[in-house]
């Protein structure tokens, strides 16, 4: 038996991260299809650049950074093409979740959709992915103070839209 090669090791760690990458993508793209496309793009980029990753650094932060850049590129490309994405319409049948929990989940996602890109990224990294302020600022390439102000503004908007918890 041979020990796993570094490439295999990298690939397997990446595999473990996939659910979290999908979650992060879902928050920032606001759309299931875009989210999975983004994860795929980011994983392909990561595999191509595997040599740049230092095993002593955090793979999740590294991947979030790749995803953030890929998404910003995508958004810019779309703006250039003036193709503004509109959320899908038409109601589908309601799933199994209890009405109460479904409404709450939906309203948070609806509220998140209204945040400007930069605030949604900050909220996604800190509140959803549990990154520290320092790590989140590093991923976004901004000072910690800027991260905090984007996070605070995003939260204030969400709070205004969502109101108090029952």
């Amino acid at each position: 038996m041979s020990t796993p090669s570094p490439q295999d090791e990298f690939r397997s760690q990446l595999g473990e991260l996939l659910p979290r990458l999908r979650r992060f993508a879902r928050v920032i793209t606001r759309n299931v299809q875009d989210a999975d496309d983004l994860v795929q793009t980011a994983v392909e980029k990561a595999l191509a650049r595997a040599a740049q990753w230092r095993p002593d650094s955090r793979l999740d932060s590294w991947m979030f950074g790749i995803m953030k850049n890929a998404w910003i590129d995508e958004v810019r490309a779309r703006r250039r093409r003036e193709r503004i994405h509109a959320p899908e319409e038409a109601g589908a049948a309601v799933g199994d979740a209890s009405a109460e929990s479904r409404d709450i989940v939906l309203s948070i996602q609806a509220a998140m959709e209204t945040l400007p890109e930069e605030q949604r990224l900050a909220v996604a990294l800190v509140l959803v992915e549990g990154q520290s302020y320092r790590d989140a600022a590093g991923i976004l390439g901004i000072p910690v103070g800027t991260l905090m102000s984007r996070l605070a503004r995003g939260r204030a908007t969400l709070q205004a839209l969502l109101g108090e918890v029952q």
Partner: protein
Amino acid sequence: MKFSDEVLMAYADGELDPVQRAEVESAMASDPDVRRAIDRHRALALRVKAAYQGVLEEPLPAKLASLAGKPVAAPVIGLRAEREARRAQKAETALWRMPQWAAMAASLALGVMVGLFVLRGPSAPFEETAAGLMARGELDQALTRQLAANVGTGGPQVGISFRDHGGQYCRTFHVQQGTPLAGLACRSGEEWRVHVLAAAPSRAGGMRTAAAMPMAVLQAVDAAIEGEPLDAAAETAARDAGWQARQDMAE
């Protein structure tokens, strides 16, 4: 001691150093407002995280799984698991296809959000200023130039125009900012001040029918309007005159 909201937020997130933390904790003990603000931050953080937790449980699409060397669809074995996966997918479809306004209307007393709704960024159609929430970018341009008869190709849509009790021009609008929004803006100097902003029914209902206007906006129009809405000729004339308030014409 008074703390900024950012400091209280950082406390709630466990991001303060020990000295600041102790300061906030001593304030918390004596000031219920401080405690409430921190509780609010924590509650919001939990709700946002919980809203996306379900994604972690979803089966991976085969394409992604194989790309990262994961055994493909390992959790989906057998009839029961498959049925569960289908159900999860169905629930997810419902989650994302449900018209956003319905979701908001269902659980939020959204209503009027004057001054609360802070949207920024290079493409944000609004900016919170000391004078209130101002229309910016495309929305500002649409309010200044667009006639209601112009059916735009995407972008903001202007609805009805009228004069308020003070003689200022006001216009209703629809704009898509992640989610469909509708509002009422009135001329304020060289700018448009947004008085009301609310979640709007999406395009399915027809962009500019009265029914597509949220109740909060309709009520604001009713409260502000002097006389009747402008007809097409009056609207064009008002636009060409730069939306200047015409005191001489106001009754």
